[in-house]
């Protein structure tokens, strides 16, 4: 089942007087349960495409559908609801809330979704266990290593049982060992939960784990990973 459909998406950024076309009429579809990477040099449009899929930004033209729903025309509040319920995010800089513990960071999206306290607690503890951090429940981000923080971020992304998880350079700030550990966890969780994962990355370690590799160059898809060269 197609969970993501992007059609002819164009996105231009203006910084001062300079206009940059980040995406130049991209079309891409993603299936349920995929483990896909977007690769390409800096400026190829990977992060921009991820942001459009994640409803963090809107294309100047074209469409983006999630679960069959056109998300471009939704209001900001509706897009926030969609992100909260259906999309998980993992960032290069870990992006944990500094004043919340590991447990509380994972619990946050569940709280926002109105999940009851018992179910919240169980889910958060299960996820902490799944990423091997049951012993770090009450530690705050400044008390965790980079690898541990990214694992908490993975757990947080999966907390609301989303349709897909979007990860922007998830291993960029991790050493080899931690990077590998995080990728193995995500691969295992992809297989166990059926949640689709989409990564934007330069990192060959990440590419090595991918079932599908989509290549971007200058805002266009040059290889969609399904055998089509565009």
């Amino acid at each position, binding site marked *: 089942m197609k969970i993501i459909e992007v059609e002819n998406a164009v996105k231009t950024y203006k910084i001062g007087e300079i206009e940059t076309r980040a995406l130049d009429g991209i079309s891409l579809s993603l299936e349920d349960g995929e483990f896909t990477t977007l690769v390409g040099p800096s400026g190829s449009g990977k992060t921009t495409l991820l942001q459009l899929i994640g409803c963090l930004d809107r294309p100047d033209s074209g469409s983006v559908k999630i679960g069959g729903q056109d998300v471009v025309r939704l209001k900001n*509040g509706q897009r926030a609801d969609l992100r909260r319920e259906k999309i998980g995010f993992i960032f290069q800089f870990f*992006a944990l809330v500094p004043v919340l513990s590991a447990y509380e960071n994972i619990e946050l999206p569940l709280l*926002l979704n109105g999940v009851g306290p018992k179910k919240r607690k169980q889910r958060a503890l299960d996820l902490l266990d799944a990423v091997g951090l049951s012993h770090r429940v009450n530690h705050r981000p400044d008390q965790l290593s980079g690898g541990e923080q990214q694992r908490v971020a993975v757990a947080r992304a999966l907390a609301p049982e989303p349709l897909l998880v979007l990860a922007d350079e998830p291993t960029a700030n991790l050493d080899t060992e931690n990077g590998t550990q995080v990728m193995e966890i995500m691969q295992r969780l992809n297989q166990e939960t059926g949640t689709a994962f989409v990564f934007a990355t330069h990192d060959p370690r990440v590419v090595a784990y991918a079932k599908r590799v989509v290549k971007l160059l200058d805002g266009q898809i040059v290889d969609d990973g399904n055998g089509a060269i565009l």
Partner: protein
Amino acid sequence: MIEITKMAWRNMWRNWRRTIIAMVAIVLGLILLILMDGMIKGSDQAIYGNAVRLYGGNIQIHATGFRAKASRLPLLPVDNADQVVEIAMTHPEVLLASKRINTGGMVNERGESYPVTITGIQPSTEAPISLIAENMAGGRFLEDNDEDMILIGRGLSEELEVGVGDRITLTGKRKNETMRQRTMTIVGIFDLGLREAEKSMVFISLAEAQSLFNLHNQETEVTISTNMVGKEKQVINELSTDLQDYEVDSWETLKPEIRETLDMKSQFTTIIGLVVVMIACIGILNLMMMAVFERTREMGVLAALGMKSHQIMSLFLVEGIMIGMVGAAMGCFLGWLVLVAINQAGGIRFGFAADMGDIVALMGDALYAATNPLDILRFGVIVAVMAALASLIPAWQASQKEPAETLHQV
């Protein structure tokens, strides 16, 4: 909301130095505000309370036409003064109603003349609650049948270099404008701690005044003391209804310069108060704008997690409110402590200002602070509310940014 409050509280202490600095600004501002208001209200109470003590009674009843010439203390007899006293005493708030003659004159001694207010009183009626009777520094208080006897203040006795038993000459103007002089023996000296005011007041018996000013069986005012200073309006309204052919006034109308001084001070307090509150708010505004700027990427993450704009706005708004509330609570407590400490230490010495004029002289030798908890609380609430408003703009700005835009801000 609980989660937002928890996060806001923890965020407050993330950069604890900056939070402390903002709070110090609030605390110091509040202490200044409370101190200034306490001292000004204390001086108001002193001026008003001492005016009542010194000039006799909270309320005075005069004949029609007195008010227009009040500053000249005209000899306008009050019709049926006994009846007026009777009617006044029927009111439960009235402690005492006493007949008087009150007019201007001169004290002459060794070729020098000093303008004074000459008050003829009923000593037996007024003595039980008279603060002058309570504060005799020498000799005795007047008695009803005293003839050629005079009571003067410590300030005047020092000026004239006279004491109990000495004789001074009193000059007054009769109703028919002729001048009368009488030499009197100082029977007592009172000391209220108001040197300037004491220099300008002398007391004689009512009978003596009636003789001196040719007002046989007549009086020019009925003076009333009530059981509460500062609540005269209600009593005046009731008495005015009962005594429609008379003029019923408190010192607010008879001494408008006192009221004007109190009003001017009140305006001054308001202006300074506004400035202090604005300074505190600018501190909070600056702090919250810095916080929004520093946490821009974090806001993007929260938006990515699905937090809505109003929830992100609430996060910063609650943080600003908390800073305001904690600062206000500390400021109110410390401000109150400062006022208590000043009063415990015997007030602020103000005797040096006695020569600055009658109204300033009414403040007395020591200035005490008024410590009304409701006033202190009011300032705290105002500051907390202003802190919340100061947080509103940066909080709103925070909520309006697009997630993609904020995520890539370092």
